[in-house]
């Protein structure tokens, strides 16, 4: 599904070689999500989940530019956001599985996670006003820090998004809106749910907009870094990524045609990186797959989480 994202940072085929630990992080997220789908397939998980397969490079690129005092808000498709910030697959899996050591005692699950400087919630558009409030707090108490909120293309149907963008622009708040525009909102193509463009909507509020088609973590950071400096000084930014969702919305609910799915697969950083940096990739891919398998085995064997209500 080609995206309507106006790209100021265009897609290019080449991916820069990453430091080993950055590649490890990308692969950690990939294998974490694959293992989750496997666990669901085997009936080991309660409820539902939304994987970020194909979008892992976005939080990895963004997190590299964030500081400890920044605040991240995530959404329903948030495993990559969390892992990129904390590299804590044990805590996240325990949360999703309701096991001891869960980040939020198993109450929040996949979509409702809170740690110092991190918050996710599952209702579309709800997080943007909250991020605006957090940015207001940061502006007063921690000048130079920013609030980074991840939303999808589908979230732009929610009115609260616009109330927040208006306030953030009006009050010159350090707010970074990262849009993972994967061209499809659950089952609805963006072309059937979004009139005009996200760039146009950002412009309407006097907000900066950066369209990013690239899958190259280093290239993305180079483009984003100066814009983030401006965000930290009170110029909010909408950074819109032309992303590609490889998997279903949640599990087994992908209604896209075979060519559409193949188009997404053709833009998978994983395949490209394997082709372009085969030796480094081979060295870490198998290791991360094994690492996540070990996490699954260890966390699955833990006792259930306990919740102290008061």
């Amino acid at each position, binding site marked *: 599904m080609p995206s309507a994202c106006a790209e100021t940072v265009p897609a290019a085929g080449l991916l820069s070689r990453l430091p080993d630990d950055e590649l490890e992080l990308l692969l950690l997220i990939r294998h974490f999500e694959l293992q989750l789908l496997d666990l669901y397939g085997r009936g080991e998980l309660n409820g539902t989940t939304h994987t970020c397969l194909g979008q892992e490079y976005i939080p990895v690129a963004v997190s590299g530019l964030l500081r400890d005092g920044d*605040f991240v808000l995530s959404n329903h498709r948030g495993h990559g956001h969390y892992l990129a910030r904390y590299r804590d697959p044990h805590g996240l899996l325990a949360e999703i599985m309701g096991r001891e050591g*869960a*980040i*939020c*005692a*198993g*109450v*929040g699950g996949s979509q*409702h*996670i*809170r740690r110092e400087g991190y*918050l996710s*919630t599952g*209702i579309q558009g*709800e997080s*943007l*006003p*909250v*991020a*605006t*409030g*957090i*940015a*207001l*707090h*940061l502006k*007063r*108490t921690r000048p130079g820090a920013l*609030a980074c909120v991840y939303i999808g293309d589908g979230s732009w149907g929610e*009115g*609260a998004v616009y*109330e*927040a963008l*208006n*306030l953030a622009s*009006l*009050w010159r708040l350090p707010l970074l809106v990262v849009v993972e525009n994967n061209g499809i909102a659950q089952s609805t193509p963006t072309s059937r749910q979004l009139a005009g463009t996200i760039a146009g909507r950002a412009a309407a509020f006097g907000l900066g907009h950066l369209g990013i088609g690239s899958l190259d973590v280093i290239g993305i950071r180079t483009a984003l870094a100066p814009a983030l400096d401006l965000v930290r000084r009170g110029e909010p930014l909408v950074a819109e990524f032309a992303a590609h969702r490889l998997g279903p919305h949640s599990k087994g609910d992908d209604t896209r045609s075979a060519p559409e799915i193949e188009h997404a697969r053709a833009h998978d950083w994983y395949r490209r990186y394997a082709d372009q940096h085969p030796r480094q990739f081979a060295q870490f891919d198998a290791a991360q797959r094994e690492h996540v398998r070990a996490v699954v085995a260890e966390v699955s064997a833990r006792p259930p989480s306990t*919740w*102290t*209500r*008061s």
Partner: protein
Amino acid sequence: MRVAENLNAALHAVLAADPGAHLLGEDIADPYGGAFKITRGLSERYPDRVLTTPISEAGITGVACGLALCGDTAVVEMMFGDFVALAFDPLVNLAAKSVSMYGARRPVRLVVRCPSGGGRGYGPTHSQSLMKHFLGVPGLSVYELSPFHDCLGVFEEMLALGEPCLFVEDKVTYTRPMFPDVAPFRLDYDGGVARVFLDERPDCVIIAPGGMAHRALEAMRSLLVEEEISSMLMVPSRLYPVAVEAAAVERTGAEVVFVAEESTGGGTWGAEVAHRLHAGLWGRLRRPVTLIHALDSVIPTAAHLEREVLPAASTIHRQVLEALRE
């Protein structure tokens, strides 16, 4: 001192005491000071923390939630309580749930002020008492402005809870006096519940939130003078969780109980109170708790039509008389 002045003073005190306290709302900045002038003088004294906002109830409630999640204190003014419907999602689905849905209890100090009620001819969308829609939400408490409860004390109580609160303010109380003369009755407090009574066993108890208190008191006077009926009024500050205990009603010795409120009929706060009293006093009441409220109707604009729908002192007088004469 009028109720509006007491509320204004409480907001001044909250902002003065807590450097992280914020107040957000539409048209709240000076010199306008809010549609009901409750925020007068606040933006001049605290320009960085008293923020007049665009017309964005969902947005500003979400912003307030963000502040509260960072440990700040946030107070939001809905210009009219009716508009809190626009903020239902951030309030119910995030602010209230944040107290517990992240596994450990985390304080969320957020008060949403809702100028409510009719009697001023503002019509169907500016006259409602919507508190019934916010009862039974885990992590959310509901309070009502009362002439018998100092506003600063109520704010301190709400903020100490560490969970979001809806603060219902009946607009007609703004211009009425704080701690009004209750003669020939006298006033005391049982827990957080104000009691207005004679020194004898009352024939009935009327439970009413702050906005109904003056109407109930007027009915009590006319019932006493015209019918020699002795009643006790109980005015809780906290509506939900219900602060009126069955034991407190039992101690009065009364066997007939009324709950008077301005909400339209159906699924009311009074029904919640009645259920608790029935559970605690089953067999000791002479008759089921009588609910007095507005008709199950939109609230009309024209004065004569509005009077038909809303409960007045005369409504309470009539219902008490009918119940006791049965």
